[in-house]
């Protein structure tokens, strides 16, 4: 078993480069190392200018998303042992502008999350004296899966529709909207509907399903989107069959 492994890391310096290029590094191969460990080793010992995001190193902060051999992954959860002895190619997330090396600009993503009104909307707040909003385990189950999103953007890197249409809301944003729509404490589904039922929102999704496959938290955004398509379609049928509307 070799004791080093080669990493091909995408480098891009906006001051000097017109486009990203790959730079190879030999790092020690340890069976328990993840790609993030290798990147940290490179930055500590070989090239301090390597720039990348990371934080918790345990798969919960969502900072360290990158492409490993073309596949969107959390580098803190991707073991070198799964690729050894072949070289490992590390690139910034697909479909996002590259700011430097492995860092991408996430402004668009943050804006789309905000568009979904990701907060509990109520017609009237309950006064504190009336106590908390109670929720049964079944009511929690209805939306819990969609609340597990760590905003790592792997789904956006996997989604070909987002790559082709930058206006597309994207998997995480729609899943986030569903997290609130399905929350029994929320009364804002009607407020989110005009944002969701658009060409560049749910109707732009063609159910490729890649987003669900790469999600490290098993949020299943593709399922959330298809379910909302059904909700929106039934809502449309109701509005046509009963135009006087029973709101």
């Amino acid at each position: 078993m070799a004791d080093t492994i080669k990493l091909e890391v995408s480098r891009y310096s906006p001051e000097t480069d017109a486009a990203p290029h790959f730079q190879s590094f030999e790092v020690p191969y340890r069976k328990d190392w993840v790609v993030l460990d290798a990147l940290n080793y490179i930055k500590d010992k070989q090239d301090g200018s390597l720039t990348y995001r990371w934080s918790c190193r345990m798969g919960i902060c969502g900072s360290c998303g990158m492409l490993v051999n073309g596949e969107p992954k959390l580098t803190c959860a991707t073991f070198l042992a799964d690729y050894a002895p072949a070289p490992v190619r590390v690139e910034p997330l697909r479909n996002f502008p590259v700011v430097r090396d492995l860092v991408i600009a996430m402004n668009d993503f943050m804006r789309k999350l905000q568009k979904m009104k990701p907060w509990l909307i109520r017609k009237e707040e309950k006064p504190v004296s009336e106590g908390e909003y109670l929720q049964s385990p079944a009511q929690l189950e209805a939306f819990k899966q969609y609340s597990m999103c760590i905003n790592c953007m792997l789904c956006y890197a996997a989604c070909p529709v987002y790559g082709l249409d930058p206006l597309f809301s994207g998997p995480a944003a729609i899943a986030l909207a569903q997290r609130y729509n399905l929350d029994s404490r929320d009364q804002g589904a009607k407020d989110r509907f005009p944002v969701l039922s658009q060409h560049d929102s749910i109707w732009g999704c063609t159910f490729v399903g890649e987003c669900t496959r790469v999600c490290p938290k098993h949020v299943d955004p593709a399922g959330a989107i298809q379910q909302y398509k059904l909700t929106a379609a039934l809502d449309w049928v109701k509005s046509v069959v009963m135009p006087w509307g029973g709101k």
Partner: protein
Amino acid sequence: MKFAAATPPYTLNHPRWYRKRVSTYWWLQRREYLRFVLREISSVFIAIFVVELLFQIYALSRGPEAYVAFLNFLKNPFVIALNIISFFFVVFHSITWFNLSARAMTIRVGGKKVPGFMISGPNFVAWFVISAAIAWLLLRA
């Protein structure tokens, strides 16, 4: 980083950010994307079958000679090849469709989510049963 006051129609542009243009052949670059595009292309073969069916009905309405001419047309080797390829694509559509619809539905029984294969499984069974029924109806004539 300055955020524009009004929401921009596209993502913010920064002259030093690198934006890769999506290649026209993006769907060839990963196996999963190719599988997706093949799934979508199966709809072309569905349309081809409908056109064939319409021609059959039209031939039947024109009389027995037209019907025989249509059947002979189907015997053309190119048409048989096309139909065999169509058959594989149409079956691919069915398989992917039943798997997809299982993932698109959340059915809860007693508070627990029903696993996907329990939704797609009955669909596959129904598919075989319905196909057998249609075959029996068509062939006993």
